[in-house]
């Protein structure tokens, strides 16, 4: 066979393994031997390169981060109850927010026309750490790591409904159909593992199941990029990856034997037909086999210390919980996964702020903080960018009757909200941007969604204007035709 007939894709996936790795993956070695013989000789001695796939031109510049963990708080957390402390709201409690502030901007149909009565933070606020960052009393764990976080308090967006809001944050457009951030990144940068998908998605929601939003699969779609860049959703029950397990009655040894023969058949067929797709297929079947071992290994928490597990809180061992997913996220990036997208639903407190908000904080505060601490302890935070935030904020005015505690709520609010980032070359212990005294409008160093995306891409070594894909005659990118890197928050 001709060495030059090996397709680039195959080189990316298979040939960068060392011989030892190849043989280690096989009990009987036959299939792997066939595979090894296909590699170009000059590649065998080369330094194993920790990257599989991706565009040759990327990264555009030296990256600060290699991985992203995006904790998307589905339903929109209330910024004035959590981080954006507004004493002024206490003074105005129950009074109408001045028109000079709200300027009659569009709000959701649910509160359109209602009086905008100022409604202060639900619980107490204190300052923490050297940075003196504010956090509410329901967030003791996040409060303990504020010096590792960069708060952006001047976020704003266009969308006022959940699905368009999330789609906007993840794809740069409110309409479904464009690639998700994780798809762009794995398309551009490939992954650092060939044993696991490069873009993994996990979902969770509050135990009380207060909110009915669907996790639409277009949130992690590859859009017009090839479908192999679509996020792989790890399921909250059973096999995390569909069809991962061998059928009942077929052991790993039996499977290995069958795959060894399969590789030989396919290698001989390649010799006759010369189609590079055949080689790719051999490599993909081998990767499937490795995933069958690496995924159970990934989900086996018995290798964690007791203290390590306890750090993530009581739900950590419950598959499908946010705590479980946070620990999984660390284990995924540890294994070289490029982009981990978490969703946690249950923040949509229109009428249940007094009952649900505290629960929601409790369920997410400890795991999210533990994730940052854990990454830091292990030296992984340096090249992992952790992002926390919702699709918009919640109104600083009340939705519902201020005199009926059980009816307290806040509506959707796109004009100002807070997100935080940690690690990945972002300045720790700072607060960037400001909303007005009511938390109504972002007024200082405003950050829009495309700027936010441009900054994340930048940390991964990507110029957001240059990572493009031509579709239907037009060059598309994550940041559409907008976006500016927020230089002030870069370390």
């Amino acid at each position: 066979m001709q060495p030059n007939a090996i397709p680039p894709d195959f080189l990316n996936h298979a040939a960068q393994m060392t011989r030892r790795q190849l043989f280690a993956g096989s009990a009987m070695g036959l299939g792997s031997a066939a595979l090894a013989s296909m590699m170009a000789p000059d590649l065998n001695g080369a330094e194993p390169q920790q990257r599989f796939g991706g565009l040759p031109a990327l990264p555009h510049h030296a990256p600060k981060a290699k991985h992203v963990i995006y904790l998307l708080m589905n339903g929109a957390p209330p910024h004035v109850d959590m981080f954006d402390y507004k004493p002024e709201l206490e003074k105005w409690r129950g009074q109408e927010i001045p028109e000079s502030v709200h300027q009659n901007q569009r709000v959701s149909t649910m509160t359109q026309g209602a009086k905008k009565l100022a409604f202060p933070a639900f619980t107490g606020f204190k300052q923490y750490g050297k940075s003196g960052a504010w956090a509410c009393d329901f967030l003791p764990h996040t409060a303990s790591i504020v010096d590792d976080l960069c708060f952006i308090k001047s976020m704003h967006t266009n969308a006022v409904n959940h699905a368009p809001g999330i789609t906007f944050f993840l794809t740069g457009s409110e309409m479904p159909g464009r690639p998700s951030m994780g798809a762009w990144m794995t398309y551009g940068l490939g992954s650092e593992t060939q044993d696991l998908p490069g873009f993994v998605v996990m979902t969770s929601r509050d135990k009380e199941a207060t909110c009915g939003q669907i996790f639409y699969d277009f949130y992690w779609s590859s859009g017009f990029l090839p479908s192999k860049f679509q996020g792989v959703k790890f399921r909250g029950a059973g096999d995390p990856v569909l069809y991962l397990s061998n059928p009942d009655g077929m052991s790993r040894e039996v499977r290995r034997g069958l795959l060894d023969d399969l590789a030989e058949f396919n290698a001989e067929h390649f010799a006759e037909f010369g189609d590079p797709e055949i080689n790719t297929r051999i490599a993909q079947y081998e990767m499937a086999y490795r995933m069958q071992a690496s995924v159970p290994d990934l989900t086996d928490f018995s290798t964690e210390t007791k203290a390590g597990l306890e750090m993530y809180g009581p739900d950590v061992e419950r598959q499908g919980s946010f705590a479980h997913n946070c620990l999984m996220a660390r284990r995924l990036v540890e294994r070289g996964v490029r982009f981990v997208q978490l969703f946690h639903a249950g923040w949509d407190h229109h009428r249940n702020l007094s009952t649900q908000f505290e629960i929601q904080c409790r369920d997410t505060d400890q795991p999210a903080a533990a994730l940052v601490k854990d990454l830091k302890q292990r030296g992984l935070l340096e090249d992992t960018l952790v992002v926390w935030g919702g699709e918009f904020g919640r109104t600083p005015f009340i939705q519902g009757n201020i005199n009926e505690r059980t009816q307290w709520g806040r509506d959707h609010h796109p004009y100002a909200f807070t997100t935080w980032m940690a690690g990945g070359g972002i300045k720790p212990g700072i607060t960037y941007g400001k909303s007005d005294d009511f938390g109504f409008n972002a007024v200082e160093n405003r950050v829009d969604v495309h700027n936010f995306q441009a900054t994340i891409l930048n940390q991964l070594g990507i110029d957001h204007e240059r990572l493009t894909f031509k579709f239907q005659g037009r060059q598309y990118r994550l940041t559409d035709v907008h976006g500016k890197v927020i230089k002030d928050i870069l370390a």
Partner: protein
Amino acid sequence: MTLRFACGVLCGFWLPLLSVMTAAAAEPPVNFGRDIQPILSENCFHCHGPDAKHREADLRLDSFAGATATGAVKPGKSAESELILRILSADPGEVMPPPKSNLKLTDVQKQLLKRWIDEGGQYTKHWSFIAPVRPAVPMVPATARIQNPIDAFIVARLATENLSQAAEADRVKLLRRVTLDLTGLPPTPEELDAFLADTSADSYEKAVDRLLESRRYGERMVWEWLDAARYADTNGYQGDPTRAMWYWRDWAIEAFNKNMPFDQFTIEQLAGDLLPNPTREQLIATGFHRNHMINGEGGRIAEESRVEYVQDRVETTGTVWMGLTLTCCRCHDHKYDPFSQKEYYQLAAYFNSIDESGANDAGGLANPLLSFALPEQQKKLDELRVVETDANKTRDELDKKVRAAQATWEQEFSQLLAKSGGPEWTVLSVVDTKSETGATLKVLEDGSLLASGTNPSQDSFAITFKSSLASFTGIRLEALPDDSLVNKGPGRADNGNFVLSELKLQLNGQPLELAAIRADFEQGSFPLSATLDGKPETGWAVASEFGRPHTGLYEVRSAPAAAGDGKILCRLEFRSPHVSHVLGRFRLSVTNAPTATFRSIPDKVREALAVASDKRDDAQRKEISEYYVNNEPSLVAAKKVAEDARKNRDGFERSLPRTMVMRERAQPRETFILVKGAYNVPSDKVEHGVLTEILPIPADAPKSRLALAQWLVSPTHPLTARVTVNRFWQQFFGTGLVKSTEDFGIQGDRPSHPELLDWLAVEFRESGWNVKRLVKLIVTSAAYRQSSKIAPGMAERDPENRLLARGPRFRLPSWMIRDQALAVSGLLIDRSGGAPVKGYQPSGVWEDATFGRIQYAQDHGEALYRRSLYTFWRRIAAPTVFFDIANRQNCSVKNDRTNTPLHALVTLNDVTYIEAARGLAQRTLLSSASKDEPSRISEMFRRCTCRQPTAKEADRLGKRLAVLRTTYGQNTDATQKLLAVGESKPDPQLNPAELAAWTGLANLMLNLDEAITKE
């Protein structure tokens, strides 16, 4: 090396054959369409193109007039042309394209632009907007294998690359290829034998004719059409209700099988309802444009949805028939192609007068509908409608009467409120207690009950009480704290919570109808009312207000019960999924005070009643009357009757066979340009119209969809025939002659064989849009019949096989891999049409996607073995057994073909594939033709690949079989488990270990690259 080649291919493709044959020494003149337009379009049109609103510097470069008017282009004088000065400028403020666009011209491109201006700077119309004319078939050497004119074009093109045809594929491969391509299933061993035995010159042609006549032909050909039509079995969006568009799907299969001419196929689907005396089939055909998603979310504005559906139809029509990307014209003029936003809405006018509301207004479907109800079903529906109408009438009349009596009620009610100081509650005394699981229930001094002892995950208490009251109006349930409980309770969960899922009461053996009034505290989505909803998973809970007493009040709605022993049986159920959420301490009391004394009367109503009736403002009057009518028992009952009647009618209507079709309203809607595509921001009114740059429509054409359909298939339309033959070409060769199947516009790819595309388009149209004829032409061409072996170097030189120096080779679509597995295993139930079926699927997929609201109820028996085509397609969670599939959410004319480990996991492990492996093993072991191991191995291998294994291959398989035999011979448990996969039962005659070993071998064969690939 790769780069140089890539340029060779791209630049070479558009070369007219003539120029190559004459081999002129002088440099040929620049060709605008081939060389210049792509540069201008990619780099300039975004700001200087057809979109007038966003045009910069008033300069347009998409027409000769525009480019010359401003001096950007001075024909013949590149040195004086501003365009050239600007592209050559070194000044970042001057140079075009501007640096911030990230666009950059290469030196070659700059030189081309210069030469083009020096040669006159002429513009020609975009190639695909000029109607095709049948080109002359090129002359080719006599040595070439020419089956039909297709080959002349292919061979001539190969000659320019110094390439020649590949040899013809061997007959086994050829029959497998064409059988899969035309029926989606592999040939049977018998069909193979017959074909190999037929030595006549036209044996292949006869085989093709046989396949074209097979009923499976339509089942195969319809797939790509279903993708294009965004066909699915549910509406999409939240709720995702089921629809019955499979009537349309079956119509489309039949249309392919009947070889309906493509013009008729077009007309019936776009406007079948407007044909004179349309048949039932012609009406079903119009389901094509009802296949889009329907948004039935509660808060949706119907008109907004309706406008979206109209836009979807415009864009789908654009993509499917014309290969145009019209979506951008929703908001503005097209950036590259000469279409205006106005023309988009003129097209929209054709689809804007469907008799639809935009709402999900017909029981899970949206009008207009076609009903297939039998006469007796229709009669029952009519009766249910009468019941519903009557119930509504009764309710409305009562409503009037009740309102008329409001003054009297108000007076009585105010008096009652004034004198009552809250009701008196009598604690019920306990006679007997029982816990379903044996928990201890102890009666305390205050009459409350305390649970202790066994604490199971779920429980149910049955308590018998005695009351001194003969009848009562209200019940009070107190959940009380106790030191013996976690967090002092009141529940027994590990945090002190409880979930009371149901509360049921009987008095004298008669069930009491209760209504929840209020609780002092309700946790999130656990309201008191959930204790009466009959759903065990929901209930009343109080986290995180632990260690405090909580009270739930109920009103008794039943009439006073008949006399009896006065015993009250109370059942408290704790059946939620929340473990041990059982009440720890509680007490029950009753009252016979008027309900008004304990009912939750909103403060606003109290306040309003306190105001003298002539002093009340509108808001106060409204508060009172609304409270009154919503709480008047007779009216509440009448409303319930009316709601039940509606539900009965709705449920029955949904169960009837109905499908969605097109029908025009009596009064057409006016159509407006919508600013940024928003339904509620109309600007100028427009009339029906088409894309005039493509082809004007006769001025006297009727303003109807029928005229639009006829325009699409008119002989002078430049796009429809080209786009259609290109899609079929893509289906057989993997890539279209125009690679961008969805975009024939200026930014789209240029055809690899422009003359061939035009020849085929004209041939197709002039044959009377004869699809089978076109398909036959393609699959009998020498190009198609070539071996698909890739010659050394060709994988790099022509990775996508655009030149067709070999036959097509690519992985089968996932649905076809499944059908093949079923076919070779003998499990396939080869029956056509009908409602979709739910095959094997890992548990929890739908539940995960819908928060448990939609459960996947897998079918059994024959349904599991139907062709993939009939698999139920839930739009928000597509069948997981398929991969690389269109999303069926919007129109798709091109499928991905990727190669990932996740795909390998499906074909290695999915139940269908394991069961098929067992079926294949079983039929081989029972085969009368193969009695010994080598012949069995051969038979099995041949079913999967159509060929015999080589000696080496057979040897490898034999050795593997021996290993498997040992493994399963020693492990009965593994054997039983493997054979138990799938719902069909293994033949009890067969030795289980032997069957398991052969099943493993079959699993290997079904995953061979050769087996899952068309080659």
